[in-house]
C-alpha cells in the first residue's frame, strides 16, 4: 500500500478517472454530488460534505429545486437508506447485511462518497486480513534506521479516516478472523486508536465513521462478538421486491454478459428468464408467486446473481449445442445445480417443488419434463 502518512494526500493512484475501468463513485457522479452540495441548505454534521437529507436524496434519486435530476443509486425501500444515513449521522457504525448480490458494497461506496467525498478508504476483509490492516503497520526501513516514530508508522485506512474525520469502509467483515475484528471495538466505542509503541494515540475527529458489509449467509464464518456487534446499527438489504424488477435486472445483465462472451442474442429467451426468476424467487421466499402454496427453501442463496449465471449458462448451451433458442432443457441443469447444494435435503426440496408446484402449472409442462429428466 502506497499510503502516505500525510492525511491530505491525494488518491493513491494517479490514474485519470476517465481511464479507469471502473471509476470511483465520487468521480463518476461528481456532478450530482456537486449540485447536491451546492443547493443543500440544511444543517450538515461536522465534516460531512452535505446534509443527511441530501445524502439520502443522492442514493434514492430525485429532482433538485433547480431542476438537476439525481439518478437513483439504490432501488429499494426508502426506509433502508434513511436508517443507514441516520446511523452515520449519529456516529454509530453501520453494518450492511445481505445475501450476495444485494448491492451492499455499492451502497456503502456511495454512502462514503456522498458523506465524505471519498470512497477509497477501504479495508477488504479476508480470512487473512491482519491486524495491521485495521490499526497500523511499520515501515521497517525507517523503523530500523530511526527507531519507532510517527514517521515509521504506516497508517491503515481506519487510522487515516479517524485522523481526517472521514468514512472508512470494511468489506466482508465476517470473513476477518475474530481476533482481528475485535480491534475495531476500541475504535468504535472509544473512538481512539492507541499506539503503545510510541505512547501515543490517534483520536478520531468528528465526522469519522465506519461502514461494514457482511454476508448474511456467512454469519457462521466469523460471527461478530456481541461486544462488537452492539457497536453497529444493522441494516439488512433485501432482495429485489418484485418479479418484474428482478426479471429486468437479470435480462439486462445477461444481455451485457452475453455480449462480452460473444454469445448470440436470445430473442425468445425472455420466457425462460422469467421462469428461472420465478423459480428462484419462489424457492427463496418459500411461497409460490400467487401466494397460495408454501414450499420449502433450499440451503443455497438463490440470489439474483445466480439466476443471471443460470441464464448465461443456458444461453451458452443453446448457442453451442442447441438451436440458438433458449429452451427449458438449457436452463434445467443450471437450475438444478443452483438449487441442490446439499445433495440430501435440497433434493427433497427440489422434488417437492417440482411435484407440488411445477407439475400443476399451466404452460410449464416442457419445463417440468426437462427438470424431471435432469433430476432423475
Amino acid at each position: 500500500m502506497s499510503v502516505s502518512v500525510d492525511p491530505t494526500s491525494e488518491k493513491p493512484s494517479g490514474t485519470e478517472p476517465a481511464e479507469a475501468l471502473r471509476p470511483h463513485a465520487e468521480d463518476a457522479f461528481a456532478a450530482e454530488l456537486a449540485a447536491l452540495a451546492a443547493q443543500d441548505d440544511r444543517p450538515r454534521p461536522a465534516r460531512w460534505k452535505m446534509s443527511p437529507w441530501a445524502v439520502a436524496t443522492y442514493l434514492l434519486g430525485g429532482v433538485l429545486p433547480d431542476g438537476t435530476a439525481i439518478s437513483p443509486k439504490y432501488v429499494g425501500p426508502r426506509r433502508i437508506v434513511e436508517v443507514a444515513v441516520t446511523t452515520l449521522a449519529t456516529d454509530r457504525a453501520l453494518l450492511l447485511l445481505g445475501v450476495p448480490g444485494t448491492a451492499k458494497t455499492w451502497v456503502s461506496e456511495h454512502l462514503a462518497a456522498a458523506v465524505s467525498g471519498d470512497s477509497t478508504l477501504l479495508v477488504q476483509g479476508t480470512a487473512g486480513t491482519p491486524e495491521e490492516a485495521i490499526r497500523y503497520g511499520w515501515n521497517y526501513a525507517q523503523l530500523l534506521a530511526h527507531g519507532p516514530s510517527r514517521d515509521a508508522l504506516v497508517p491503515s485506512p481506519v487510522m487515516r479516516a479517524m485522523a481526517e474525520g472521514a468514512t472508512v469502509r470494511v468489506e466482508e467483515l465476517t470473513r476477518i478472523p475474530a481476533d482481528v475484528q475485535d480491534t475495531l471495538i476500541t475504535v468504535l466505542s472509544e473512538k481512539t486508536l492507541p499506539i503503545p509503541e510510541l505512547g501515543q494515540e490517534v483520536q478520531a475527529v468528528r465526522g469519522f465513521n465506519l461502514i461494514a458489509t457482511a454476508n448474511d449467509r456467512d454469519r457462521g464464518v466469523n460471527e461478530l462478538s456481541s461486544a462488537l456487534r452492539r457497536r453497529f446499527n444493522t441494516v439488512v438489504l433485501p432482495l429485489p421486491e418484485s418479479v418484474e424488477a428482478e426479471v429486468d435486472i437479470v435480462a439486462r445483465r445477461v444481455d451485457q454478459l452475453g455480449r462480452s462472451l460473444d454469445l448470440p442474442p436470445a430473442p425468445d429467451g425472455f420466457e425462460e428468464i422469467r421462469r428461472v426468476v420465478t423459480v428462484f424467487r419462489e424457492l427463496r421466499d418459500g411461497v409460490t408467486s400467487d401466494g397460495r402454496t408454501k414450499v420449502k427453501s433450499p440451503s443455497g442463496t438463490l440470489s439474483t446473481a445466480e439466476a443471471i449465471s443460470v441464464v448465461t449458462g443456458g444461453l451458452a448451451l443453446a448457442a453451442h449445442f442447441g438451436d440458438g433458442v433458449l429452451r427449458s432443457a438449457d436452463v434445467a441443469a443450471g437450475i438444478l445445480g443452483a438449487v441442490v447444494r446439499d445433495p440430501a435435503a435440497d433434493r427433497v426440496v427440489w422434488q417437492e417443488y417440482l411435484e407440488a408446484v411445477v407439475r400443476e402449472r399451466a404452460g410449464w409442462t416442457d419445463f417440468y419434463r426437462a427438470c424431471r429428466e435432469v433430476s432423475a
Partner: protein
Amino acid sequence: MAAPVSAEEAAASEGGGPDPAAAGRPLLLGVRHHGPGSARAVRAALEAARPRTVLIEGPPEADVLIPLAADGDMRPPVALLAHAVDEPGRSSFWPMAEFSPEWVALRWALEHGVPARFIDLPATHTLAWQRHEEPEEAEEEAEEAEGSGEAEGRPESAEAEGGCAVRTPGLGDGPAPDRGRTVERGEGGAGAGGGSGVGQGSGRAEASADGPGDADGSGADDEGRGSGGVDGGRGSGGVDGGRDGLRRDPLGTLAEVAGYDDPERWWEDVVEHRATGTKDPFAPFAALEEAMGALRETYDRDAATPEDGRDLVREAYMRIQLRSAQREFGADGVAVVCGAWHVPALRRKVALAADRALLKGLPKVRADLTWVPWTHRRLARAGGYGAGIDAPGWYAHLFASRDRPVERWLTRVAVLLREEDRIVSSAHVIEAVRLAETLAALRGRPLPGLSETTDAVRAVLCEGSDVPLALVRDRLVVGDVLGEVPAGAPAVPLQRDLDRLQRRLRLRPEAAERELALDLRKENDAERSRLLHRLRLLGVEWGEPAASHGSTGTFRETWRLRWEPELAVRVAEAGVWGTTVLAAATAKAETDAAAAGGLAQVTELAERCLLAALPDALPTVMRVLADRAALDTDVGHLAQALPALARSLRYGDVRGTDTGALAEVAAGLAERIFVGLPPACVSLDADAADRMRRHVDAVHGAVGMLDEHVDLPARWRAVLRVLSRRDSVPGVVRGRAVRLLLDEGELEPGEAARVMGLALSPGTPPGDAAAWIEGFVGGGSGGGLLLVHDERLLALVDGWLTTVPADVFTDVLPLLRRTFSAYEPGVRRTLGELVRRGPGKRGREPAAHAGTPGFATGLDERRADAVLPVIRLLLGLGPDPGTAEDPDPGTAEEGMARDVTSREGTASDGTASDGTAYDGAADDRMGDYGRGDGARAGGVKADGETGGGALAGVGA
C-alpha cells in the same frame, strides 16, 4: 380554567380566545377515532369547558349502559355490541379502548356527574339498514373479509325469542334521562373506527363497508404512527372520513395536497404534533373543524352514494339530539364528541322540519345492546374486526405515558427482548433512542412515531432481523390486552342464539347427565350433532362424545350430555368470537388453526370442522394445513396427519359435506410424503425404523382411501418399490414395502421369493435379515398365514434360520420372537407343524405348468370335497354332494371363495384351500376377520371350522 368558550369558535374567529359572541354554540369536539392524541385533547377540552352534558357519537339505545362504564369491573378494551334481537348474526360493534376519545369523554362525564348521552342514529335503524344492504355488502365484504361468510346471516333464525330485550335492570336510572328510547345499555362508543362493522355472520366487521358506521377506515390506517403522544394537546380529528378508502378519503386528500404519501403521518405531524406549543385546549379542534368544513363543502356537492345518504340521515338525527340537549342544558352547556367528519354538518343550521323529514320512514329492527369484552388483537386490523387501528398497544402506550414516550417504549421493547433471551443492554436502548430521534429529524417529523421507533428497534435491538421484530409487533405494538365487562352486563347474543337453537332442536340443557344417541341420517339429529360439535370447539363442553353401543356405523353418534352452570360463563366468554354459534365456532376454528402447534393438531381441527359443519372455517384450516405440511420436514408428522385427513374425507361423505378442498390437501400431503419418504428412511436406528414402518403402514392405508386421485396408488407403489430395493433402508421397512407390494399384487410370481432370498442371503447381516422378516411377515397383518400358505417363503425363512451362526443366533432371537409371537396360536401351531414335517413333503418344487407359485400342482380332492358342503350351504344349493364337473376346479374354487368372502367376510379362513387362501391373506382385514370368526361359534362358522380342521388335517 373557566374557559367557557367552545372550541369551534376559536376556530371560527381565528384568534381562538374566549369570544363572548360565540357563546351559545355547542362545543363540538371532532376526533379521530381511537386517536390517543384526540383522547387527550378531548379530556383537556372538557376539563376546560366543563360542559353540563356530554353527547357522544354512538347508538342512543346504549344510554342505559353508560353507568356500567364506571363499574370497577369494567376494563377497556370493550365494545358496545348491538344486534338484531331475532337475528343475532346481524350486529354492529363500537369498540372502545382506553385511549379512545369516546371512552375518555364517557369516563369524564361519569366522574364529574355530568349526564352523557349517545346521539348517533339508533342501532334499531342502522341494523335494519344492514339488512337492506346485505346483498351488496355481501360482495364487498366477501372480498375483504376473505369469505368469512356474511352469508350466514342465518335468515332462518326468525324465531321470535327476540322479544326479551335484555334491558338490564338496575341500570335504568342512567344519568341520561331517557328520551323515550328504550335501549339497552350501551354506551357508545365511539364510532370506533370501523366500528360499526356490519356484523356479518361471522361477526367480523371489516372496516369498510359498514353501512351505518362511518367506517373510518382512514382513521388509523397504516402502521401506526401513533400520535406521538408527547405533546399535550393535539386534537386529532377522527375524521372518519375515509368511509372507504377508495371512494373518499378526506385525510388522504388533505395529506396529498400537503405532499404526504401517508395520510396518517400527515395527521400526526400537522394536527397532533404541531399543537404542542399552543396552550389553548380548543385550538386543535377549531383548526380541524375548519379543514373538515372545507373538505365537506367540496365533498357534499358531489356526494351520491348510499353511504352519503346515510351520513346525512345520521347527521340529521345528531342535530336533533343536539338541539334538544341544548334546550335542556343551555346552548353552551353541551359538548359533543364525534368523528371530525361530522363536525361541519352538526354546525350547519338546518331547519328542524327538514331534519325530521329525513328521518321519516327509516326501516327498523328490534335491537339489543350490551357491552362485550374486547381485545387489542381484535382492535388491530389483523384481528378481523377491523377497528382499523394497527397499533393499539402503541396507542395505549402513548396515552398512558406522561412523558418520554419513545424512551419508555424502547425500554419496554428491551425488557421484552430480554425475556426472550436476547442480549439487550441499556446501551442498546440509548442508541435506539438516538437513532429514532435522528431518523425523525431526517424525515422532517417533529417527533419519532411508531415507524421511526420500529426502524430503530430493527437496526439496533434486533440486529437487522425481522424475526424478533415480529415478536415486538405481536406483543407490544398490538399487545395482549383483554378487556373485561362486569357481570351485570346483559347477555351476549351468542347465549340467545344458543337458547334458540336449543329450543328448536328440542335439546334442553339439563344438569343431570344423560346419554343421547343420534342418527345422523335424520336432519334433526344431524343438526344436534353439529351444534354439540360446534360448542365443543368453542370450549363449551356440554356434550361429550361417547362410544356408541351396538351399531358401529358412521351415521351413529352417542353423546353424554350434562349442562353445568359454569357453562353459561363459557358461553359468555365465547361471545367474543361471534354472535351466533356458527359464526363463533367458525371464527374460533380459524384462530385455533393459526395458533395450532403441530401438523397433527391442524388435521384434528380439520376433522372437527367437518364434524361441526363449518364450511367457512375449512378453507382457512386447509390453508394452514397446507402451509404446515409444506414446511414440515419430518415425514413422520406428515404420515401421521394423512390418515386423519383420509378419515375426514370419509366422514365428509357420510355427512354430505363438500370435501373437495380436503381431498386436494390430502393429495398434496401424500405427494410430499412420497417425495420425502425414501430419503427419510435411511440411517435409522431400530426404534426409528419401527416407527417408520408404522408410518408406511398408515400411509398405505390412507392412500387406499384417497380413491379420487387415480394416480396416487401407482405413485405410492413406485415409492414402495424404491424403498424395497434400497439397501440403506432398514430391513424392517424394506420388508414391509415388499409385503405391501405383494399384497397389492404388484410382484411378479416368484418375485417375492426372489426378493426374500436376496434379503436373507448369507451376505446380509443376520440382524438385518431378521428385521426384514419382521417387516415382511411381522405383526398382526396376516403374515403368519402367508407363511403357512406359501411354502417357498416358509422354506426360505427356515433355511435362513439354520444358516445363522450360533453366536449371532441369540442376537436375532428376540427379533424373531417378536415377529412370530404376534401370530395367533392356530397359525403358530400350523407353522410349527409345517416346519417339523420339514421341507419337501408337499411338492416344494412347483412344476413349470403349475398355477400359483408356492402351492401344489394338483388339486387335493379330499380337501376340496371337505369345503364343498359349506359352499353349497352358502350358495343355497342344497346339500347334494354331487360331483364337481368343473374343468378348471382351481379357478372356480377361487372365484367361489372370493364370493364367499365378499358375502360374509368370515369364511376365508375356513374355505381356504390351497388355491384361495392366498387371496384371503392378501387382504389383511379380511384375513383378520376370518381368523377371528373362525374362533367363534355360530351357524356358518361351524362349517368354517370344519374347513379349518380340514386344512389343519392336511398339514398334519
